[in-house]
């Protein structure tokens, strides 16, 4: 299993989750976050914004679904400008459902 952590624009997060739902990946977790990237924030006029609002989308999928989910997120969160976000992929060794205590997704 892999955990996919995607940091996307807040306005794109609904498009991403809708796209994932259409492809059958309903389960996800969203976190509101602030951060900056390689461009060190953004300067608009005379004001410099160091940290920008982003949404982190966390989704855990089986290994062979990773490619499809990545493609979906990349296509839905894309605007072509700086600040579209980053996607990280993390190993998950085990998963449990609390209600039943059973292993697996």
């Amino acid at each position, binding site marked *: *299993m892999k*955990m996919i952590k995607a940091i996307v624009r807040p306005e794109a997060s609904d498009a991403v989750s809708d796209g994932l*739902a259409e492809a059958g990946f*309903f*389960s*996800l*977790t*969203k*976190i509101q976050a602030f951060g900056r990237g390689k461009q060190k924030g953004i300067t608009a006029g005379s004001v410099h914004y160091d940290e920008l609002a982003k949404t982190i989308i*966390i989704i*855990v999928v089986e290994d062979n679904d990773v490619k499809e989910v990545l493609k979906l997120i990349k296509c839905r969160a894309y605007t072509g400008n700086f600040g579209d976000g980053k996607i990280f992929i*993390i*190993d*998950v*060794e*085990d*998963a*449990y*459902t*609390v*209600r039943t*205590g059973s292993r697996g997704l």
Partner: protein
Amino acid sequence: MKEIIAIIRPKKMGATKDALDKLGVPSLTAIPVFGRGKQKGIAAEISCDIRPERLTQGDAGGMKYIPKRLISLVVGNDDVDIVVNTIITINQTEQIGDGKIFICPVDNAVRVRTDEQGESAIL
């Protein structure tokens, strides 16, 4: 070392923290999050029973995202099973929406104050 990421009901936070305290693993990070599971967000954060026929109605009357609490704690390899079992027993309500637990490997940990590395940084 392993990171245990558990997504649980917000109202179960107190009980979970107490139980982990008693186990001797009081350190954790909690984040308020929104999310949905396999049921597409139909089982809301409610305390009454959900009739089974409601669950088969698909999207009708469902919430888009349900407020949850994400807790993340890093423990030694030997403690993973007991911590997971404790979180499961405390958070079980027999209702859909009890949450998920993920276990991820962690390469290293550093305590900022003393620069300790590895297992001694999390004890």
